[in-house]
């Protein structure tokens, strides 16, 4: 049977009331130790605001650059043949910078995977 943190706290209190301070401390010590190792995201972890801004700026600039040169880009990217490298390469490039932005954005918003 596993005892919960509540059970342990209660038994520690019982020992403390009975004058067995050392045992009480021992029980509490174990509990806190166990919890700290179990504890999910460390609270000190800061949110990646700076990274979000950096990747966000990079991503937006890339989008602006592409859309202001729309005609030229669509022309070159659809020439066919070996030029398949352009659209596929661009898709890779955007997925890295914009993907990194999206990942940091979600972390900044406090949306993290369950640990």
């Amino acid at each position, binding site marked *: 049977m596993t005892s919960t943190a509540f059970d342990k706290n209660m038994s520690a209190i019982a020992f403390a009331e009975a004058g067995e301070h050392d045992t009480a401390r021992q029980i509490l010590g174990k509990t806190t130790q166990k919890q700290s190792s179990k*504890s999910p995201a460390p609270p000190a972890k800061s949110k990646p605001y700076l990274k979000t801004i950096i990747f966000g700026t990079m991503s937006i600039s890339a989008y602006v650059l592409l859309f202001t040169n729309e005609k030229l880009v669509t022309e070159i990217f659809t020439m066919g*043949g070996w*030029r398949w490298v352009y659209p596929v390469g661009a*898709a890779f490039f955007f*997925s890295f910078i914009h993907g990194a932005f999206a*990942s940091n954005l979600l972390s900044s918003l406090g949306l993290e995977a369950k640990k």
Partner: protein
Amino acid sequence: MKKLLIILMFALAPLSLPAHSALAAGDGPSKDMLKGIITQVNAAERTIVFQKDDTKELVTLVMNEKMQPEEMKTNQKVLINLDKHAAAANTMKDISIMFIDMSLSKLIALLVIGAVGGLLSGFIGSGGAFVMTPAMMSLGVPGAVAVASNMCHKFPKAMVGAYKRWKYGQADIKLGLVMATTAVVGVQIGIKIQKYILNQFGGAGSNLYISAVFMVVLVFVGGYVFYDAWKLAKGGGKETVSKLAVRMQKINLPPMMHFKTAKVTISAWITIPVGLLTGMLAATIAVGGFIGVPGMIYVIGASAVVASATELIIAFVMGAWGSVQWGLSGLIDIRLALLLLATSLIGVQLGALGTTYVKDYIIKVVMATTMLIVAISRGAKIPGYLIDLDLMSPIQESTITLLEAISFWSLVAALGSAALIIIVAMVKGMTADSRSKKAVLGTSNG
């Protein structure tokens, strides 16, 4: 690691294959399509001078009786389909402007479908393609460009999603690559079948075949996944390996393959057919995931979480391969691909992290709901194809319009309801998680 690299090389080898003409998902466009610029319009003779994009060769094309000389825009990239059955040679069947003008409403529409498609993809491993291509076409994008641009947005999205879910310990890279390799072969077989049907029964016959396959697969597989999910929900959500998968795993036919993340050891002779079928279906209905994920769950014996994560690896390999094929023909409108990516890269990561908060059967619920509603959408199109084939007497114009509307809106409903289930399940999971964390902290502090 070495083994993984060898599998990866095998999976990417088909990328070097030359472009084939094809109809659907994984392959390139039809050979009867011309891409280039109209340099001159001769209104009196009803002809145009057309410069082919690839060879720069000039050809004279004849307008069909419905076309107006004023409609022929010069100095703009266009796609032209030739009418092979017309009396005069080089008669055009249809002409479409390759790049749509990007208005604000179109831009917003692309961003919204990108976000929802991404969310679904991150959560169930596939989704989006069945709605993105028709949605782009309804914005005025020519069919071939819509398919190509969707493909080009699919593989980076799948890559980001697969990476995230691999980090969460859900994606089985080996299983993904083995499935992807066989699926690429399956696509080729699927295309051969499609071509045979097209030659035998024409365009309407081919459409009917696609819709029929779509309906049968979605109703049966979707129905079974739904039944399974319902059973799990009633039984407290504890997932067990299907009886079929247990039986399959017992077949000791070498070479045996072990998949670490999926926690499965199974003969390659079982894995290969599942991959082939995924590819064949991808070539037919453009959504291979609808057979790949259930296949991995019920035949191979992976959990829904692992199967949906692994599907993203398959989608990445197949999407990259398809993008190269379409890129070789120069049909990718990168603006469309990148606008879809702008929101779908956020959506896919949100969907991926959502899977860490929900019970396994929720993935099945979302998958089944999407499949069943999409089946309605396809079903609504069948009467139209039957009429084209003279297998059904014509019905009123208004009924056809109604069926078209049902078909479109059920796609929207499929996406909307799936997104809603995901978000609700995720929020519930997150709230429960933060409450339990607070409770733990509370007891340790108090």
